[in-house]
């Protein structure tokens, strides 16, 4: 049996202190609202759920000072990323084991595909709460939860049958989030001048440039409409929806390589169009 303090640490790491603060089952749609944990208590033994904070503002045992940094995902929308400064590292969550999750993962690794749903039900609330403590972007959290489960699925052969699955899953989620944030930071470097201008309320581009940009965007849209449907579908899945090639290829009934070449071709066509457009505007 776990000690209360140890378990509180785990819960704080996995869910954050605000985990139990959302009163209803309906998740908040506002990106700045409190994190939502649908049924965390339902997945815990009664003796353990007693340790969960039950009132808003009740401390769960871990300092949860957070820093907020701005970040921009590929979609172009801005959202705050909450980077915990003093939370326990993920790989320290080893003292507690959810035997049910471990056995479900063991069965799934052994080839019992029906165990995946059980594994999902056990891990998803914890993963979601863990990620929501770090970012308030609901879409990003959902994407990362799905990606984390895909990694668990892809690497199930590597799973050690006596290893706890929760620290592994949380570490994967943290790595995927870090990768996203790193990509976002790179994007920030690219767009930093515009962003600064926007923050200062200064128009970053002249009206003329803005009109040229809009025209170019419209031309790209028209060009996309002129593409063969297979090309357009491939572009939409991979570039707009951001689906990995491995996932998108079976949906389009083609090999990954063929899809990659198709995307490359479409992007080349669009790039030529854009360079032609910018040349024209420069001229």
């Amino acid at each position: 049996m776990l000690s209360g303090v140890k378990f509180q640490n785990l819960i704080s790491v996995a869910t954050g202190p605000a985990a139990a603060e959302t009163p209803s089952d309906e998740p908040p749609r506002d990106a700045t609202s409190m994190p939502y944990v649908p049924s965390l208590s339902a997945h815990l033994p009664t003796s353990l759920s007693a340790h969960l904070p039950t009132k808003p503002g009740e401390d769960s045992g871990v300092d949860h000072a957070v820093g907020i940094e701005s970040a921009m995902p590929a979609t172009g929308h801005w959202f705050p990323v909450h980077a915990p400064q003093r939370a326990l590292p993920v790989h320290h969550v080893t003292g507690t084991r959810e035997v049910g999750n471990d056995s479900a993962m063991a069965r799934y690794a052994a080839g019992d595909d029906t165990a995946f749903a059980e594994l999902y039900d056990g891990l998803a609330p914890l993963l979601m709460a863990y990620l929501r403590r770090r970012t308030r972007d609901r879409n990003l959290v959902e994407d990362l939860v799905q990606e984390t489960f895909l990694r668990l699925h892809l690497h199930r052969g590597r799973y050690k049958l006596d290893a706890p699955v929760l620290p592994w899953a949380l570490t994967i989620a943290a790595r995927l989030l870090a990768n996203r944030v790193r990509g976002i930071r790179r994007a920030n470097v690219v767009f930093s001048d515009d962003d600064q201008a926007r923050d200062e309320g200064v128009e970053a581009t002249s009206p003329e440039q803005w009109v040229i940009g809009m025209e170019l965007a419209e031309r790209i849209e028209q060009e996309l409409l002129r593409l063969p449907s297979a090309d357009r579908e491939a572009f939409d899945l991979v570039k707009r929806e951001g689906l990995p090639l491995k996932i998108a290829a079976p949906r389009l009934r083609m090999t990954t390589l063929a899809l990659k070449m198709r995307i490359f071709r479409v992007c080349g066509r669009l790039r030529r169009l854009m360079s032609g457009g910018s040349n024209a505007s420069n001229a």
Partner: protein
Amino acid sequence: MNAEELRTRTIAAVTTCPSRTHRAFRARTILLMTSSVAASLVIFFLAGGLRAAQRPESLVAGTLGGGLAIAVLSVFAGIYRGRSMLPRPGWQLVLIVTLVPAALFTWKIAWSARYPGMMVDWPERPGLRCLVLTVAMGIIPLVTLVSLCRNSEPLRPGLVGAAMGVAVGAGAWVFLELWCPVAYPHHLLIGHVAPALALAMIGAVLGRSMMMMKNSLAR
């Protein structure tokens, strides 16, 4: 999207994406590792195989036994993770990478020093052939090991790769004991220690580039 939709979407995504079960992965690991070790042995025998001439049998047995023990320990510490899916802490991996070549070198010197004339300078054998042979023997198992863990390491992929490299280097060192009769320190540093460290560096680079968990789903 509510929780149920996310669940449905995730399960649907998983069903469209094939993955290896534990048994299939183990079979593949055994097959690939056996093949890569066999390829290393082929390289070893093509280079001349066992060359025990001019050395007392007890010297060969002692250096070989000590080297083998250290190699087994380094494989255990550098590759095996116990009951965890996460790699060892960073300081332990750094310790493995630095201590294993030092331990192999120290053992070789200490054991060879007991035999008169076994550590005399041999200027025409600076150790370049040993270096090439060790790297050639170690690179195939190392690449195999790294590729088995491709895109799956969420923590410290570089250090994990370096530990793998040094473990493979220690294994290659054992075979080199059978091949190389030279034991003077300059030769050992260039021909035996340097390739183990080179394999660690190659492992670190491969680990960072291949084992690091990226956002693409390549396996």
